[in-house]
């Protein structure tokens, strides 16, 4: 009975505050107590323990992105900010490669995980240095949208240039040898939608070629990011539908670095360039801008290199 008055009081708050209060009371204390040893516990909504292999997919997220599918390529739809961010993703990949003196190979094999409607996958497939792009997403509707849009560009229909698969990463066949792996694996705006990021990241690494880069982007879990992504973007400006973001699943760059440091197969040499981050901020009217230091409180890119 003791929890009832508290619950009632929380429920009487306005929605956005209620979310915050709820997240604060449930999620954060646990994280605050054990910041270095966050366990990325798997509370998969898929309780069917008999189905191997376990999927990283969060089914609520799948249905949310299903609803988003139709507006994916609408220039004024809710994916507008992702479209605007896309050029920076390429800039960041170049930054990662340049930290090692550029790419050694002329043509690169890309794997885009959580490709959605194909914003990044299409753009990677158009690059002159793309050998092939494989793009996967567990939501069938977004893959349908992506395939439909692919048909509007003859270049993307060239054999092997761009292949969409409606599967989670666990179902992607492993490369026959490490050398057959991908040069670039991208997980843009994905890990904040995954319930067990650690297990998810570990399932990706076998697909990465030695010397290749795992790059991604996400949002740091701070008051600022709650204010901008949950409160402003979802509630006030309604730039994206409510429920697009799950603030408690946002990840700090130092948590990622910590995770990478515990992996033997990643290039985390002290003082080396094997771990890269870049903070970006959306400035209305100007677009996305790189702001150094902003990775600690807002949207940021991360890249980690697999040891050769």
């Amino acid at each position, binding site marked *: 009975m003791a929890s009832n008055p508290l619950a009632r009081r929380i429920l009487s708050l306005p929605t956005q505050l209620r979310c915050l209060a709820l997240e604060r009371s449930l999620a954060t204390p646990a994280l605050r107590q054990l910041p270095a040893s966050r366990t990325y516990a798997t509370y998969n909504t898929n309780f069917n323990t008999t189905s191997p292999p376990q999927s990283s997919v969060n089914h609520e997220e799948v249905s949310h992105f299903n609803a988003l599918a139709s507006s994916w390529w609408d*220039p004024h739809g809710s994916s507008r900010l992702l*479209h*605007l961010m*896309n*050029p920076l993703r*390429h*800039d960041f990949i170049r930054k990662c490669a340049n930290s090692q003196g550029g790419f050694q190979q002329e043509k690169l094999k890309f794997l885009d995980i959580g490709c959605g409607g194909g914003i990044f996958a*299409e*753009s*990677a*497939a*158009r*690059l*002159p240095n*793309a050998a092939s792009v494989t793009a996967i997403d567990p939501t069938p509707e977004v893959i349908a949208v992506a395939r*439909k849009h692919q*048909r*509007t*560009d*003859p270049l993307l*229909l060239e054999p092997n240039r761009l292949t969409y698969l409606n599967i989670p990463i666990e179902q992607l066949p492993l490369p026959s040898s490490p050398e057959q792996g991908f040069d670039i694996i991208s997980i843009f705006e994905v890990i904040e939608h995954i319930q067990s990021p650690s297990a998810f990241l570990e399932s990706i690494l076998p697909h990465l070629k030695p010397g290749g880069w795992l790059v991604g982007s996400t949002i740091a879990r701070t008051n600022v990011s709650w204010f901008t992504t949950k409160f402003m973007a979802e509630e006030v400006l309604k730039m994206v539908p409510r429920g697009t973001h799950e603030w408690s699943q946002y990840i700090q760059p130092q948590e990622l670095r910590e995770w990478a440091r515990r992996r033997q197969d990643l290039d985390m040499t002290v003082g080396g360039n094997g771990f890269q981050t870049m903070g970006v901020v959306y400035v209305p*009217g*100007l677009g996305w801008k790189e702001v150094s230091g902003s990775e600690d409180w807002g949207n940021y890119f991360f890249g980690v290199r697999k040891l050769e």
Partner: protein
Amino acid sequence: MASRPSMAKLLALPPSLRRTVFSAAQSTVKNPEIYDLVCIGGGPAGLSLVSALRSNPSTKNLKIALIDGQDITTTRTPSDPNAFSNRCSSLTPSSVRFLKENGAWDHINASRTQPYHGMDVWDGVSGSKIQFDPSDRVGGSILDTIAQAIPRSRLSESRKKYELGRDATVATMCENSNLTSALLHRLRETALEFEILDRTRVESIQLGPEPKDESSLDLSQWPIVTLPGERNIAARLLVGADGANSPVRQFANIPSHGWDYGQHGVVATLQLDQTFSEGEMRTAYQRFLPTGPIALLPLPGNKASLVWSTTAPLATKLKQLSPAEFTTMVNAAFRLMTVDINYMLTDASTNVAEELAWREPNTKASETGLPSYFPRITGVQEGTVASFPLRMRHASTYTGHRVALIGDAAHTVHPLAGQGLNLGLADAEALAKCISRGVEHGMDIGSCWCLDDYNAERWAANNAMLGVVDKLQKLYSASSGPIVWGRSLGLDIVNRLGPLKGALMGAASAS
């Protein structure tokens, strides 16, 4: 008879729908060739866009076709070194920089171009003057602050350029044919696969066919250009560099707003009584008459280019004059009071030479504002007197899905500031930059994600320039009353404020 009602129903639809229905019904396009960029119009804007793309490592391998209904590959520059085409443009320093970066400027016949270093502009009614000369460009001012406050404005960039630049050139006079053949030379030099389809009339532009089934290529949102011989070209990006009546703009349903000034621009190549050697400082002159501005722009040696904006009836009359009478009228238009000019032009019985001979000595230069070193015009090159109607037009946007407009297809401006061609070159430069950024980031260069920046960069800048030129035109069309007092006061004040003029010149030259 059966088709009558359906035809009537079709005609009752709004034009945009009608076109869609009609072209969908007509769409019999089979296996179109696929190009990355198709540019319709081989004028300076279109050619400079293509040559800019060819000069950039990221865009040089795009598959490009350039289509023009006229013969653009045969050079039309007069072979006589003393004869000049009447179609000249005043290239601003930033246009010249763009052409140098493209590698096209190396192919310009420099002996046929003429830089000028000062501008004398005066009011035909009050005699107030404003002198543009490069020494005014020094010094910071409140304008710098304003320039910095407006993001993406070219004002600050141009201010900086002028302060840093050691080149004291206001602009460079160049025949359009000289520029066109330099650009073509440059394109041939790059030796990359590139198709110039000149003397080729575009038969139609329509959207591609609906896809056959759920898995086949869908070109239904691609513009398909149909050429003679049933040749169909699908364009990832269709660029309209096809002039004021742009078929590309009409295809994209982009409205273009503006008005006719009811004026004509009379052009001619003139001879002067002074011969200038290469490297001498030259000046451009412009006098605002109530019927429109008259400008004398220097060409090499003793030549000059005339642009006389005037009413349509007067333009017709001027074109009918004998070369001697025409020469006299041009002298009169720069030297006499406006009332005398009107009399000479409207009274059919006058002998213009006699009229000028007795009216000029009775006119004080201090009253007309005539510069003391103003040359006398001694003749007109045969066959160079021509005229064209003056308009102001601005497309409501420069981009659509797989469509971009540049140059006159996007805007038509009054020639009083000599900006038309420069705006077109600036469009080409900005669009080439957007395309190269698009290619480097894997964008579809026909999508709004790639083209929005071009529209954002050029539309507002051109709109500001069109607005200023239009207001100047209106301001100087008044022949009496408070507007004249006001504007002469304004011009005098502007003349005393060096930095303001510097900024005005900078902005004018930067675009």
